[in-house]
């Protein structure tokens, strides 16, 4: 490696330092935290935060600080490995060369292209990782397939929120204004501190989701922001909130409609903004009229006066801001919850103002190399995209980038599908441990395919169960890349991922993409190196290229407020929002096209104490929620990293002391969590942070220290809360599934294996 680049400092003692932004950290979400890696003999000596980074200012979470343990871990996949199909589930991997691996992929792809056709190749992508920017290009522009899949029921992560925002605001992801676009941040005279921040179904302190640096919330609390937190659990932020609305999981729409009810009935809304920039106010007001705080209180288990107080505090303190979380996506009723959440903000006029919610037009950089790559698939093959046989889910089929996961499973399970599926190619995903609802059904379905390939950093239960070929990925500090917070949908900066360590025999997602692209569809892949590729993509929006970004490390983007007044939110340059009506749609002009209602409505979760027959509720009396984060782990990652596992050694189910006493459970006991769909075992975490009628179970658990071979598969089914999550309990649009709002019973057992 040359050491004369500006981002590399030779310390003169045999070590050098590399300044970079990580895709925070290997795996995880694009926060782009700034790190300085000290390297000696191609090994990490130390990871430190970069004090010059405009967002993180040197601050790091333990996942980056323990990067050396990821880098040097004995369980990493070090070389391409293959095994015979009949050896699936066995640790019978054989090391092969990259050329052999590529030859194998190429021969299979060409075979399936000929018969039965490119649509028989599926790609499966995980969540949030660097590959998110490129996986669609793999599917469309390399494999020539329209079947860009994932295993997450209802696509219940980020996609629903982005779609709702696109339909109703005509914009990319709406984000809390934490002055992230400004080099001098909170000192910038354009910025104002939000008076209240409404944090809905989200605990950003421990997850830094989608590119939002979570501890910015603490920065803002120090500057005077007060909090309103909507969460069934007492989180750190909830304990410090002026209002903690600890709702019954899955009742968010009812709560949001009650907030709108108070804001409208008490005449607290921003008349000027609503009259000029909102569509359908009268009908929306009529729709929420019946949703008094008292009515919502009965459904949500939240005190009516707290609802009233929170609505008044939020609406009468301009500017205020809001964050919406995964809970919006993980509900059958999620489109309506997201719709109403955006209405709360719009009614108060907090969109695109200092200290409110930032809006942006999605960047061209990402458009070109994500979903627009579908244009490289011939129309007759595009038309073969997996879809529901009865034409349900028109909304998803129109707006979604690939098949609805639930429909994909139906197709794979079918004995007589319209055409057979032969091959799947996975990126950074461990579906049996994390994403898939009813994971054993997915295992059986994917096992029917002839050829499964994955590329990843570590071996995981899903690869062990199902793959025939695995390619080793390099980590964040072993390759060149670009990190884009919010995946280009509201991107306050572009960060350079500068290479600090020369990988042994692993490659990045982009390197593999270019290699396979040149082999399979060379006409679409003119680039020889990732740097050439990045520079060409950057040139679609900027005059500078990748090497300039490497020098700069972080490039903050320009930002303007009030873009709806200046025409900078719409493709045609006219004032307003980029929606069919040109306005924020309180009443949607799009949903009815897809058989969904134009106005929000509350729907009980399919498995709730109020929707199931009395005998079922008696047997399964508790509401089960899941997915709350621990800072040591990102979804199913990091279970094998000693410093991180030590902080959260076992899967935990949080139970209120009263409930624990009722069921004879003590803190630390092994507990079975069971409902009509499935069962798993976790360790009791008895705390007063949750309603006695609700339990919370951690997700994504497997045990890298256990036997990997089938049937144990690193114990992936033992603690998997998704065993209890239904298949295809999705919204009318296809978006949203109840990962966080089902029912269960709990009882003490003797061990994890019990």
């Amino acid at each position, binding site marked *: 490696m040359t050491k004369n680049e500006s981002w590399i400092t030779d310390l003169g003692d045999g070590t050098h330092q590399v300044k970079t932004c990580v895709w925070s950290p290997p795996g995880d979400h694009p926060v782009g935290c700034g790190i300085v890696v000290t390297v000696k003999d191609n090994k990490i000596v130390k990871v430190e935060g970069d004090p010059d980074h405009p967002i993180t200012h040197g*601050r790091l979470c*333990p996942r980056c*600080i323990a990067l050396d343990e990821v880098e040097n871990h004995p369980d990493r996949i070090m070389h391409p490995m293959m095994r015979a199909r009949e050896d699936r589930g066995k640790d019978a991997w054989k090391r092969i060369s990259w050329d052999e691996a590529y030859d194998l992929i190429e021969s299979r792809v060409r075979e399936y292209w000929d018969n039965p056709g490119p649509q028989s190749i599926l790609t499966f992508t995980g969540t949030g990782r660097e590959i998110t920017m490129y996986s669609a290009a793999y599917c469309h522009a390399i494999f020539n397939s329209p079947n860009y899949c994932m295993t997450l029921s209802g696509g219940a992560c980020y996609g629903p929120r982005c779609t709702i925002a696109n339909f109703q605001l005509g914009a990319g992801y709406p984000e809390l204004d934490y002055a992230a676009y400004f080099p001098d941040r909170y000192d910038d005279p354009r910025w104002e501190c939000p008076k209240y921040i409404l944090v809905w179904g989200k605990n950003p302190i421990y997850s830094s989701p989608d590119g939002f640096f979570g501890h910015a919330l603490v920065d803002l609390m120090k500057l005077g922001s007060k909090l309103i937190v909507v969460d069934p659990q007492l989180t*750190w932020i909830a304990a410090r909130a002026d209002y903690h609305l600890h709702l019954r999981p899955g009742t968010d729409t009812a709560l949001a409609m009650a907030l709108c009810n108070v804001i409208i009935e008490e005449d607290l809304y921003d008349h000027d903004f609503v009259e000029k920039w909102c569509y359908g106010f009268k009908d929306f007001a009529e729709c929420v009229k019946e949703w008094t705080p008292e009515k919502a209180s009965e459904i949500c288990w939240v005190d009516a006066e707290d609802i009233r107080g929170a609505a008044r505090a939020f609406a009468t303190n301009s500017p205020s801001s809001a964050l919406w979380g995964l809970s919006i996506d993980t509900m059958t009723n999620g489109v309506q919850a997201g719709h109403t959440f955006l209405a709360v903000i719009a009614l108060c006029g907090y969109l695109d103002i200092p200290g409110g919610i930032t809006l942006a037009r999605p960047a061209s950089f990402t458009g070109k190399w994500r979903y627009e790559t579908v244009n490289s698939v011939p129309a007759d093959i595009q038309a073969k995209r997996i879809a529901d046989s009865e034409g349900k889910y028109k909304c998803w089929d129109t707006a979604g980038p690939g098949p609805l996961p639930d429909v994909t499973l139906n197709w794979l399970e079918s004995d007589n599908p319209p055409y057979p599926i032969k091959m799947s190619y996975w990126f950074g995903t461990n579906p049996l441990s994390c994403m898939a609802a009813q994971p054993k059904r997915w295992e059986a379905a994917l096992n029917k395919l002839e050829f499964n390939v994955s590329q990843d950093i570590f071996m995981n239960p899903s690869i062990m169960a199902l793959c025939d070929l695995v390619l080793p990925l390099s980590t964040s500090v072993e390759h060149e890349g670009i990190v884009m917070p919010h995946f280009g949908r509201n991107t306050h900066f572009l960060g350079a991922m500068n290479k600090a360590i020369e990988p042994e025999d692993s490659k990045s997602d982009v390197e593999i993409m270019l290699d396979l692209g040149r082999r399979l569809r060379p006409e679409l892949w003119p680039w020889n190196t990732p740097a050439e590729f990045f520079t060409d993509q950057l040139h679609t929006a900027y005059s500078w290229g990748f090497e300039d970004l490497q020098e700069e490390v972080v490039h903050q983007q320009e930002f303007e407020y009030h873009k709806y007044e200046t025409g900078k939110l719409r493709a045609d340059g006219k004032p307003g929002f980029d929606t069919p009506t040109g306005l924020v749609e309180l009443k949607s002009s799009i949903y009815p096209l897809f058989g969904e209602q134009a106005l929000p409505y509350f729907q009980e979760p399919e498995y709730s104490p109020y929707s199931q027959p009395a005998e079922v509720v008696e047997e399964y009396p508790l509401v089960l929620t899941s997915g709350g984060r621990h800072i040591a782990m990102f979804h199913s990652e990091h279970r094998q990293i000693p410093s991180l596992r030590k902080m959260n050694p076992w899967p935990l189910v949080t139970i209120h002391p009263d409930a624990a006493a009722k069921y004879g459970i003590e803190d630390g006991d092994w507990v079975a969590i069971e409902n009509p769909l499935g069962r798993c075992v976790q360790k009791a975490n008895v705390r007063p942070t949750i309603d006695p009628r609700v339990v919370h179970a951690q997700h994504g658990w497997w045990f890298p220290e256990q036997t990997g071979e089938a049937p144990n598969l690193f114990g992936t089914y033992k603690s998997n809360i998704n065993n209890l999550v239904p298949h295809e309990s999705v919204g009318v649009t296809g978006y949203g599934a109840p990962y966080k709002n089902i029912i269960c019973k709990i009882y003490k057992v003797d061990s994890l294996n019990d």
Partner: protein
Amino acid sequence: MTKYAMLVDYKYCTGCHSCEVSCVKEKGLTGSEWGIKINEVGPAKFEDGAWEWDFIPTPSRRCDLCVGRIEEGKKPLCELHCLAACLKIVPVEEVSDTLAGKEEGKVAVFLP
């Protein structure tokens, strides 16, 4: 020679564990040792209906406040990495003025 102390605005400590892991790495500590450890107090609801729930990092006798780093013009790693930016190593003479200037409570001073 300047004498230093650790000042923690534990009102804002989120229990993120970054100080713990940073210290283990910086000092090369083994699994059973620590230089700083997060303690949790609560959560409990007081009679006024509000929650009391704090995380308080406490340095061990392995902590030398990274005076070496400070003298090189760098922040100690626990301070640099602290996500809530609530932990600082300061000269002891500054402690009383800093405490007098605090408008809010929940501040701890350690001299490990």
